[in-house]
Each structure stands twice: as C-alpha cells, then as structure tokens.
C-alpha cells in the first residue's frame, strides 16, 4: 500500500483511539463529549440492528450505535467492561458502543493516509483515513456517516 498524504497542511489534531475486536479506530477528540460505562439500553423497534437502543443520559435520550456492527465486524455482546463514547455528530448526541478506549494520540494532518482502495464498501463508507502509530494501524472514523441515513430509511 502506497502512503499518500491527504493534505499538505500539517495542522496538529488530537484523536481518541479505541478498540473493537482486534482492530483500532479513532475519532477526533473535539467531537467526544464524555466516555461512560455500558448501561443496558432500551431497544427501539424497527431500527437497524446496529442501533442498540436508547439510554438516559442525565435526562436526555441518547441512542447507542454498536460501532462494530455498524462497520460490518461482529455484534458486540456488551458487558460492564464495554464503553460508550458519547459523541456530538452535527446537532445530535450519539453514543458509540466500543470494546475499550486505548489512547489519546496527537497527529499532524499529513500523517493521515487516505483509505486504501479495498473491496469493502463499508470500509470506504466509514473510514476517512488511516494512520500508523508505533506499528499499529488506526482507522479514522467518518462520524457523520455512522447514524442511519434518514432519507434512505424513510423510503
């Protein structure tokens, strides 16, 4: 795979990396509001399987997306050790269910490589770019695409 820079500017940004199964992913720290332990969610009817349901976040109703399932990996069997990353996506708060939070990493934009042209559409859809840290490969998640598409679902 050929390293390719997505952008020539080298602005520094902080990312939170987390684990799902054996893979590592990350999101921009600015979109993360809080990180909390798993609490059982109330399932919603007629929703895609990756939407695990809703929980009470201090009086607000927070939908929980099983990120592993969303990315086409495996359904998570949540335990007390699983983690919900509360993120702000546009105007909405969404909880991402992941296995564990790993690290806060600081990268320059030019360290982020474009997503390799692999077969999976899901990868193309949700992975904005990848970066290499100390031999680990971390995929940067396209947060805006995590929630189910309104129009497509309505139709």
């Amino acid at each position, binding site marked *: 795979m050929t390293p390719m820079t997505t952008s020539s500017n080298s602005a520094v940004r902080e990312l939170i990396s987390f684990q799902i199964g054996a893979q590592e992913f990350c999101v921009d720290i600015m979109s993360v509001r809080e990180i909390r332990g798993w609490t059982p969610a109330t399932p919603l009817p007629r929703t895609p399987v990756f939407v695990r349901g809703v929980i*009470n976040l201090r009086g607000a109703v927070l939908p929980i997306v099983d990120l592993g399932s969303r990315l086409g990996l495996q359904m998570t069997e949540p335990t007390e050790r699983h983690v919900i990353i509360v993120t702000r996506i546009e105007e909405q708060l969404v909880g991402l269910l992941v296995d564990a939070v790993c690290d806060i990493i600081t990268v320059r934009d030019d360290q982020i490589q474009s997503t390799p042209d692999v077969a999976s559409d899901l990868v193309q859809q949700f992975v904005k770019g990848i970066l290499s840290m100390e031999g680990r490969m971390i995929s940067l998640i396209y947060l805006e695409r995590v929630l189910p598409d309104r129009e497509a679902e309505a139709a």
Partner: protein
Amino acid sequence: MDPLEAIKVTFFQECEEQLSELESGLLAMEQGETDSETVNAVFRAVHSIKGGAGAFSLEPLVRFAHVFETTLDDVRAGKLAPDNNVVKVMLRAADVLADHVRAARDGGVVEEARSQELAAALEALNGAAAPASIVSEDFDDMPGLDFTPLTVSDDDGFGDDFGFTPLAAGIIDLEPEGPALRRWTVQLRPKNALYAKANETGLLLRELKRLGDIEVSIDGSELPGLAELEPEHAYLSWTIVLTTDRSQSDIQEVFEFVDGDCDLTITADQLTSSLPMMGEASIDEPFDVMALIQQARADVQAAPAAAIMAEILAAPAPAPVFAASAPSVPAPAAATATAAAGVAPDAAHGAAAQQATIRVDLDRVDRLIDLVGELVINQAMLAQRVTESGVPRSSNIAMGLDDLEHLTREIQDSVMAIRAQPVKSVFQRMPRLVREVAAMTGKQVRLVTEGEGTEVDKTVIERLTDPITHMIRNAIDHGLERPEVRVAAGKGPEGTVRLSAAHRSGRIVIEVSDDGKGIDRPRVRQIAIDKGLIEVDSNLSDEDVDNLIFMPGFSTASSVSDISGRGVGMDVVKRSIQGLGGRIAITSRPGQGSTFTLSLPLTLAVLDGMVVSVCDHTLVAPLTAIIESLQPKAQDVRAIGPDAYVIAIRDTYTPLIDVGAMLGYRTTPLDPTKGVALLVEGEGGARAALMVDAIQGQRQVVIKSLEANYRQVEGIAAATILGDGRVALILDVDNVVAARRREKARSDAKLAAAG
C-alpha cells in the same frame, strides 16, 4: 445592553401588542362596531407606535404612522364615516404599518411603492392633501406663541447640555375669532403615578393644542434643590389657558388616560382682555437649571461635575425632571411643538388598564419547566424506591409521598399554565394572509375564527403558524372557487374559510374548513397514478384518495403558483404536525367543501400514561387514547384469516393487535388469555384492542423527544424516563392502530410489483 437599546426592545414588543390591538379593532369596525371606544383604541394604537417611533427617529415608520393617524383622527372626529371601504383601506394600511415596524426592528426596507400607495389611499380618504410629514405639526401653526426654540435635540430626547434659554411665551394677540370661542383655564398638577405610567405632560399639552390656541405656564416653585430631588417625583404643575370652541367634555377627554393620576381643574373664563400674562409667569419661575446644578455642586463639592451629570442622566426615563426628558419639563409649549413626540411612549395606556402582568424571559420559564420535569421524574423514582422497600401503604412515609405527588402535580400544572397562551396570537395573523391570498387569486373570502381563547403551550403555538398558514392558503387557492363559479353553483360569491380551535379530551383540535368545491377525487387519483404514487388498479376508498394529498411530491395545482402548489405543501404540513405529536385528518364532500382537522397535545412536556409491560420491556400508552382495559376470555377471541384476530367486546368485534409482535419484541404471538387488552381509540374513531403482557400502573411521565438525538421511530411517539432511571418508550397509539392497514397495503403493493 445599552439602556436605550433595552427601551427600544420594549418599544418593539409593545408595537406588536399595539399592532394586534389595531388589527382586532379594525376587524371589529369591519363588523360594524364603530363606537367611539373601538375607534379610540385603534387611534391610540397607531398614535402610540408613532410616538415611540418618533423618539427613536424611525423616520419611515413615523411618516406612515402619521398619515394613518391623521385619517383615524378624522374618523374619530366624525369627519370620515368608517364604512366598509374605509376600513378595508385601513386594514391594508395596518399591514403596511406592521411591515414598517418589522423593517425598523430587523433593519429591512418596506416596499416603497406599496407604502406610498397606501399612504396616498389614506390621504385620499382624508380628502385633504395634507403633506405626509410630521413637520406639519411645526411651530407655525401656533400663532399665539412666540418663543425662542430650545436647543433640545429631537433625535434622542436627551439634551446634551442644559444651556437653553428659559421659555418666554409671550402673547401677541388674542382676538376672539368667533362667538362660540370660549376661554378655559386648565390647571394640571401631575402626580407621581402619571409619570410612572409613562404618560407625558408634553403629549397632553399637544392634545390640548389640537382643540384650540393655548398658552401654557409652568409652576416650578415646588422643585427642590438637586440634592433633595427625588428623580421619580412630580414637582411641576401647569396652567393652560385654552381658547376653543369645544365643550368642557372635549377638554376632559384629553385627560382621559391620566384621570386620577393628576389634579385637574377646568374652569371657564369669561372672555375678557385682562388676561394674566403667561409669559411673565414663565420667566418668573426659578427654573434655572444651571443654578440648580451649581447648587448641587456646592452641596457635593468633592464630586466632580461629570459624576453629577452621569447621575442626572442615569435617572429613570419617565422621571419628570429634565434629566430624562428635557422636552417635557421646562418648556411644555415647546414640547408640544417639537417633533419629539414624547420620549416615553404613552403605550402604557393600554397596559395600565389591564391586569398587572410582568414580562419574563422565556428562557427562565423553560428552565423552570425543565426543572419541574426532573422533579416529577425524581418524585416517581422516590415513590418506586419506597414501594420496593416494602413500606406499607398506610405508613407515614407513603402518605407523605402521596402528598408530595399531589404537590408536584400542582406545581407542574401551574408552571405549565405560565407558558399556556391563547391561540389568538396565531389566529390574528390569518386575516392578513386571507386578504393577501384573496387579492392574489381574485377570490372573495370571508374568514371566520372561533375559539381564539383556547389555550395551549407556547411551544405548540409557535409551531402552529406555518401549518395553519399553509392550510388556509390551500383552502383559498385550491378549495374555494372563483366568484362566478360559485354563483353558477348556487352559492354566494363570497367563500368562507372557517378557522376554529377547541379543547377536546386533553388535546387541542384545530379545524380549517372551507365551503368550496371539495376534493376532486377522480383528478387526485389520476394525478397520483400519473406520478406513480399508486397503482393504476389500486382499490382506494374515498378516504384513501383524500389522504393521497398528504403524500410527498403530490400537487394538484396545474401551475405552480406563488401561493401554494409547490408540491411540498400538505406532506410538509403533515410532517410538522406529526413532529408536534399531532395528527391531521381530512374530510371532504364534493361541492360542499373540505375540512382539515389537526389534533395536537396541549403541551409537549408531560403526558398521563398507562405503564405496561410487553415482553420484559416497559412501554407507556397515553391515557387519553385508552377507553378501557380488560382481560380477554378465550371464547371472545376469534381468528379471522390466517394471522389476524378480533376480540368481541360487548358484541362488537374489534381488531386485536399484539403490541409485542408488532414492535418486533417477540415472534410467537402472545396467548390473549394470558395478557391484558387495552381498548384504544385512534384518530377518526378507529378502535383496536392492544394486547400487552401486564399493566404496571398509571403515571404522569415527562416526554423526551427521540428526534432530538435520533429520529422518529414508527409506532413510537416519544420516550420518557421512568423511576428506575431507564428509558421507556411511549406508544404512538394511532400509528399502531393504523399500522395493520398500512402493512397490508404495503404487501399488496409488493405483490402487485412482483406480478
């Protein structure tokens, strides 16, 4: 916020109130209520807007308001009969005035042509070609007075300096002009309350001037030194000599709004030449501001002059001293003449007559409502914990909790009442819309409104305007026929659009109906087929056809008009109503018109619910939808078709819906005899029995939106948080009742597509 800005904000708020007063007054006049009270109310509204606008130098607004006021004054004086034509022009003028106010507030521009056209129409009514300028109230038309103009800047009403020349109002000649002229001496001594209610002596004097020639003198002898001066007290009194042909009651009418707030004597003089020279009196007055300031300086030697000036300028605006309103104090005659139509708008006229009210920032109320919502959850949580701990129901703790529940509920109701508002504010915008749409489409329309006093939560009101606007537009544009068509159909040329609101079983029901041609069902059907919305051979009932107009992308207008028919119309209306937790239904009879019925919750914040369990899930069913609950007996449940069941309730077969299966919580249907059936009624009276596993209890729940962080979920109206802190879903009963039919339609469509 800078104080002047704050006053300006208040002014615009009051303008909105005045505008609605104006509109309702004019509408009353249109109905024939042309008594002086109504006319005066209308006049006052325009006058107050003009007055305030003058203080803020809102030139275009002042100019237009002035023309309007002049016409109204003629009506008030009986020179112009308020017949239908006149009122129609005035209604349109009120619309333009509202545009002017909004333009002044938001910094836009009013369509000049329209404004001028209306101004011209108003002037034509006057019959007089009065120049549309406030300057007509200039000094020139006060022949009896000769004075040095004051250096009072009329742009903000705050004099920059106090270096004006004391007024010397000399009387030059006062020949009696006619036998009917009489001379009156009016002594006016305002009390503190007069200024506190934002009345303004200057305006009163100006009103007097309208009646005839006046000479004014001021008595400032009670004015204390600056150090002792109470900024909000009234110290000055006036003596006015008025020469007029009007009666005493006319003079008294000027003081109508300050009745009781001032000492007033009106005495008739015999017309003689030996008048007291008012000018002298004025000059005699020890009203030397500089001297006052000097005195104050002497008193407070250490204080720098700037501080004193700052103090003076910081005095509250309606105070009767020179600090806030220079024009009103030392030279009332000048105040009547200058364009500064009063620093403090006399808008308090209206307010003073009403009950005591306060303006509260909506955010504060919302915060309170949120907190009360949390309180309700907490109270429920506490009650649940106590029950779980096994405390007997008769114990003190349990009884105390019951009291707490009552109190909580009462607090909640009271807080909700703060935010409840009559739908009048929305309904009031509609007459204008009807006029405009009627003019654009060339139809004759009469709008009838009912139930304007129906109260509903402010958050609901705010979101009602757009759907109602759209429905009324549609009713006029698509529903009503042109006058000639109506006549040919044996109806009156004027169509009627009826807008009504009422409370019905815990919801507000709003109806928009017209007496037009009704829905053209064959055409609607054809269009739906053409647009591929339905199959050619679909078997649809009349009701189904009517409901096609709510489908996205449907438009019956053959040409896209300015008014409606962009093809987004009714489905957008439907979606916004659903977003409010409401429903929309249509009934139509060919040739007789259509009725759109909106049913909305009174509040978006709380709901009385029945808490039920379905397959280990807790759901809440809105209590308003539930008629009764029962335990089905095996012999009452009958299968109908392969997978549908009905239940006999008092010999009526009602469809039985397994909620758990419908929401996908279980795959094998619940044995009806093991569960509980809730008999519910959906929109339009459709009944169904919902099968649930068990009933947990009845509880008031706080509605939490699912859309805020997610989106609408079919079959679910909203969510709530229960006593244990978990989220429970609120069933959308109508949707569940209708779901069966929809699913059937869907599978039919699939079959059709496959075949």
